[in-house]
């Protein structure tokens, strides 16, 4: 058998384990409508996925993962609780010459939609995947985007600032720039300072008149609404040094999971909104320990998962070959409740899942990677 056929056989072995855990095997079209992904991830997806088109259906994408089609299928016809598994190629675009990322590779995935105990579902997904890969001696990294979201919600600042920060959690540099601005640590751009000063003098309408008739879809009312938002933001007190320090400490938090939990409890004394997030981490670690996971060996990083695909909004994990930073994670996954809300029109469905790269797992096992 060639490497690809053997990778598939290895994937089938993983899938059998997921099926034994009650997962229903599903397939997904390779060609997916691009609009869904573009709306979720924005233009960046064009640099990461293969887009194509036909004159009738418009833009299509070679599936970059199974999560979106599996969620859509679940919304359409699934009853809960539900668990799914799948095996198939995904396609990732190479935007850099000489890059080493594979353009297509197999993914074996396991997804759980369950409104029951979230810690239990997260522990199960992690433990099953880590268990299958245990012979490889991989290093596990975990994080929790929910902690950052909780920290942002807990800041003593305006709802508009919280919304802006929340929106940019997955863009670390932008997030940092916003914090600096809200803390008064970066200068106000001159044009904005002038505009805010003019608004304070009640010259807003006059400025709008002087700017002349608008072109395009964005209306004068929308411009006026944003001007009002700018005035409100300028009047808001800066973020306190206590809170920005706390946020910095949180973003830098990286420690073995039990130590990270203690640190989080300390931080929660100054930012009460972190307490429920710390409780969730506590319950998750207990559930993992119940499943035989050595939680003291889990590396917890509060910023983990911030630069990956935007849909993870809670627990995140990755399993890596030790000493091989050149390789992608052998497995990764996490919680993505918000994705189910974004794809459906209703409320979020609690969802957690993960994928293994059988080809990479096999190559590592055989010393070929």
């Amino acid at each position, binding site marked *: 058998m060639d490497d690809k056929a053997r990778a598939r056989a290895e994937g089938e072995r993983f899938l059998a384990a997921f099926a034994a855990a009650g997962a229903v095997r599903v397939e997904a079209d390779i060609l997916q409508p691009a609009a869904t992904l573009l709306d979720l991830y924005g233009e960046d997806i064009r640099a990461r996925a293969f887009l194509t088109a036909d004159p009738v259906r418009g833009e299509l994408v070679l599936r970059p993962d199974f999560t979106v089609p599996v969620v859509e299928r679940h919304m359409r016809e699934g009853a809960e609780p539900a668990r799914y598994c799948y095996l198939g190629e995904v396609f990732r675009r190479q935007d850099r010459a000489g890059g080493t990322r594979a353009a297509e590779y197999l993914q074996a995935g396991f997804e759980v939609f369950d409104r029951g105990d979230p810690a239990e579902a997260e522990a199960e997904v992690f433990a099953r995947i880590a268990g299958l890969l245990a012979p490889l001696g991989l290093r596990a990294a975990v994080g929790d985007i929910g902690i950052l979201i909780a920290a942002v919600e807990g800041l003593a600042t305006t709802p508009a600032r919280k919304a802006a920060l929340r929106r940019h959690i997955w*863009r670390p540099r932008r997030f940092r*720039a916003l914090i600096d601005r809200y803390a008064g640590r970066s200068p106000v*751009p001159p044009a904005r300072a002038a505009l805010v000063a003019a608004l304070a003098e009640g010259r807003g309408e006059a400025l709008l008149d002087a700017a002349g008739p608008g072109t395009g879809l*964005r209306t004068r009312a929308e411009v006026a609404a944003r001007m009002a938002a700018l005035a409100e933001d300028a009047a808001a007190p800066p973020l306190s040094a206590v809170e920005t320090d706390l946020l910095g400490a949180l973003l830098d938090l990286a420690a073995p999971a039990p130590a990270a939990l203690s640190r989080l409890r300390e931080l929660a004394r100054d930012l009460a909104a972190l307490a429920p997030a710390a409780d969730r981490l506590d319950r998750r670690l207990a559930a993992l320990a119940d499943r035989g996971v050595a939680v003291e060996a889990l590396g917890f990083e509060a910023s983990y998962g911030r630069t990956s695909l935007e849909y993870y909004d809670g627990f995140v994990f990755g399993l890596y070959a030790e000493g091989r930073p050149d390789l992608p994670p052998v497995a990764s996954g996490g919680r993505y409740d918000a994705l189910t809300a974004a794809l459906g029109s209703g409320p979020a469905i609690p969802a957690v899942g993960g994928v293994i790269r059988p080809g990479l797992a096999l190559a590592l096992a055989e010393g070929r990677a």
Partner: protein
Amino acid sequence: MRLRLGLPSKGRLMDQCFDWFKARGLALGRSGQAREYAAAAPGEAELDVVLMAAAEVPRELAAGRLHLGVTGTDLVRETLPDWAETVGEWARLGFGQADLVIAVPQAWIDVDTLDDLDAAAAAFRRVHGHRLRIATKYHRLVRDFLREAGVADYQLVDSQGATEAAVRNRAAEAVADITTTGETLRANHLKVLSDGLVLRSEATLFLARTAPWPEAARAARARLAQRLGLAQPDG
């Protein structure tokens, strides 16, 4: 050994290229009829001059079918992934300057920076139910620039010409386009963001790094460098 040099085949840019070489003592000229896409160099110059659309020069350099080529920095960076490894900048020619900029309607007095654009895009999407559209033909450059700046909730729509009119035509809310003086943008009621400069472009003599450079070609290149008064390129 003769080197293959690609030059823009049309208009002012071609004339300026000819002028640039002529000023350095190398008189190139269109061979035969005016419509023929070939140019001649003096026999001793060891140059085969090929005329082609400026937009095709980057691809031909990358494929190794040209040793040398003149085109805009904008086209090289838009067309070639990892351009710095594929081609080398040998000389900036001092003409064909143009800026690739992000511009928005003048009536948007609340938008002066990329930070404003990002906030306006978020609000726009809430109101209109779709992402804020930016018309451009420089998809890669603009996307990389906006990603670097952390702008979200925008969408690039393709525009291969008369991009400044896209907003008035309601095909887009903003544009990313090449401008020299900004006059066309202003005439279409658009203004450039204060930090909206994506790239400063200029006609540039590139050399293909991926083309085969046997000893004879290197020697010819060295003689050409001397003749044109250019520094010997590295690599």
